[in-house]
């Protein structure tokens, strides 16, 4: 299983970012191994709501 967390930095020692859509990083963690990867959020400075994916 994997958990994604909105984060202020790219590591496990960063704080949880209160804003999901505008967080600095997403940290993806495997809670069993505590292995993780981080992704920079491309929408961090966007204004307004994020675009929804087109309907299928």
């Amino acid at each position, binding site marked *: *299983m994997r958990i994604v967390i909105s984060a202020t930095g790219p590591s496990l020692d960063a704080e949880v970012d209160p804003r999901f859509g505008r967080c600095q990083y997403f940290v993806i*963690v495997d809670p069993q191994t505590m292995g993780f990867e981080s992704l920079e959020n491309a929408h961090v400075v*966007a204004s*307004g709501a994020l675009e929804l994916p087109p309907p299928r």
Partner: protein
Amino acid sequence: MIANKGVEVVLTGNTGPNAFQTLSAAGIQVISGVTGRIRDAIEAYKRGQFQASPQPTVNAHFGIGGMGMGRGMGIGVVIVFSPQELAAMVARKAVKMAQEAMHIPILGVVENMSYFLLPDTGKRIELFGRSKGEEMAKAAEAPLLAQIPIDPELARLCDEGDIEHYDSEVTALPKLSYRPYWLRRSEEVCKWRNQMAWEFDKLEEEIMADMWSAYTKAAIDHAMNPRNVGSMADTDGFGTSIAAGSMVTELARGKAVIEGLRITQQDVLDALGGLPEESVHCALLAASTLKEAIRDYMAFEKEPWKRAYQRH
């Protein structure tokens, strides 16, 4: 993006309705209200301390243009459309989106390119099909603000930047016989905003009071009402720097230039009745600045031609 990484759970502070819906639809559990370090949050999750959020924690935010509701700048939207069936269909979707998905007040409806008046006979021709203004206004629970004709005069004024001089019945606002949804809603928004502004003012006052409690009356007075600003030593920056800068100009005023050089950090501190430990350097800064200014002044006195090169 998150869904295709094999993620099953999201831990975060707040989620808006869009993100919440999208994640829920993808079968991802959303847990909000999480704070602290990521490592600790994961451990807490493993111990089963979190419950899934049943709903988004943030009301809708709106994202049309840089001044949209997301920035707290606007109070609603105006739906503008033309009578073609396709355009009207898109506008109806926008109305639905504002009402149901985003709960944004619709301030009014404008039908553009609504008709054309034959200049000779005044006959009204609906070039793009039957007018849908009334119908749209009803759907939006908002007034029909205007049905704008195709008019060369309007186009000319538009190009010349004089659109406010356009004189026509379309610019007269309709009278309202009811209190529509958009009005009720914008009243709520205004009330909420006033409340927020009041709370921020109060918070600012408290912070200022807290900050100044460490300073003497003389220091506060000089910080809030700096003396001789722009005449000798320009100061800006934190309150204590302003206070010290202001006091040093008061000390130097009326003294011979050479005496000004003797004003020390201690003189400024004494005159202000002392400053807190962490702000003592501000007095030194002020005294040094004065010395520097006097040195500058004396240099120019000796070599007046340099004045032409003085930088401002």
